């Protein structure tokens, strides 16, 4: 089990896979103005404070801010899927797939509570490595 887990890689820089613990999304919070960014930086884009950034673990809860249902994507990408913009509880906005919901504008409610869940991305790289990705789903 531990051997299999060690081969897993995060799908993107802001997905963290601690050796002992659950995967989580990482944000960077400005110690001056409190804004949460996705992606490391030294200077706050909003208040311009320098060297006040602190990496923070983002909660697995958020609200759907906007979305679209994608019917045409790159070759090999399964459609339709819901591309969702989610405001994470406490700050930070992340884009991802909204799953376990019908891709139908009548079923998807703006502002709905969603949970962030982590699972295998279902895609491997050329070396056969597996990746852990995050997804959004309607809140339990």
């Amino acid at each position, binding site marked *: 089990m531990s051997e299999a887990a060690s081969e897993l890689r995060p799908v993107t820089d802001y997905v963290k896979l601690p050796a002992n613990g659950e995967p989580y999304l990482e944000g960077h919070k400005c110690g001056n103005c409190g804004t949460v960014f996705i992606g490391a930086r030294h200077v706050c884009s909003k208040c311009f404070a320098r060297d006040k950034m602190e990496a923070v673990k983002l909660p697995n809860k958020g609200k759907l801010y906007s979305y*679209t*249902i994608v019917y*045409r*994507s790159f070759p090999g990408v399964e459609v339709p*899927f819901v*591309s969702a913009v989610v405001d994470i509880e406490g700050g930070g906005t992340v884009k991802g*797939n909204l799953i376990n919901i019908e891709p139908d504008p009548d079923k998807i409610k703006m502002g709905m509570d969603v949970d962030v869940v982590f699972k295998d991305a279902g895609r491997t790289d050329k070396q056969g490595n597996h990746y852990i990705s995050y997804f959004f789903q309607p809140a339990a």
Partner: protein
Amino acid sequence: MSKDDVYVIGTDMIKFGRFPDRTVPDLGAEAALLALDDAGLGIKDMQALYCGNLFQASGMVGQRILHQIGQTGIPVVNTANACATGATAFREGWIAIKAGLYDLVLAVGVEQMGRGLLGGGGSDKGIPTEGLLGSGTMPTVFAELGMEHHKKHGTSFEQFAKVAVKNHHHSTMNDKAMYQKETPLEEVMGAEMISYPNTKLMCSVNVDGSAAAVLASEKKVKELGLMDRAIKVRASALTSDPFTDRDLVMPDFSTCTRMAAQQAYEMAGVGPEDLDLVELHDCFATAEILHYENLGLCKDGEAGKMIDTGATALGGKIPVNVSGGLLSKGHPLGATGIANVYEIVTHLRGKAGKRQVEGARMGMTHVVGMGNAAAIHILEKP
């Protein structure tokens, strides 16, 4: 900075289309010569060249255009600013004349496009994330912005679709547009859905194209006796994106546009009510709706009503994208900003034929590159 105004004394564009057998400098050279002819001048009269091209940004496109139309040794500045590339080149020319450095400059915008979806390329390490971490394609980005507007103001799929009906209708009167084809509402709404609520007919067309403009100082316009055909640049504004809450995942096309509009209106000393026509950045039908409000053509929340009433159609209160817009005329990224200038100048000269906005005295051009660059020009018949 010179107090004297800057004028457009020559401008033209090629008919947009797909020219896989031609080269970028070749396409740019054609528009450059057309614009010079329109001004009755030659390349030897130009003191600098500002060339906008995105996809060959490292390729010295401006110099290669001069290889085709005359290597006079003038300074060349190549600009790349996403979809604001052409407008940025035009503005650099305006700045140089305003600074008093030159009296006559040439601005060219040119692009050769591939086909298919733009954006969403992601990182080249790991695995592709398109369709895994949502979608980064341009249709998706603008669909999500449209859905935000729907959430705030109730704007409907049908209202977004009406933008495409209007702009495709306008293009039937423009020989230089990629398409000249009516698309009734049911056809637009029934077309292949790309990213809800944008169907294929609500997405701009990837085409090849070029456009050019000759800019001149007031002194030179008078000296050349060209004031009767000159169009005054009343304002030029360029902004980048200030931080807004969600702009890391939702490129914010609105804030930079609003800032540029405010600056342009202030510089010209006019308001939206003074404009007779607007060429704005309808890369997707949803975008045009947002920009009615961003440019102050209507109050926030009233853009849906504005398209319903026909206010932005030819013959309406403030016609928008009578060229056919990016949706139907086509969107060769680097050329678009200068093609917009061509369209407005043509109306202000009263030479727009069937699509002429009657009595037009003042018009606005607007482009926005990703969510990171907005450029606006206000042009007036003196």
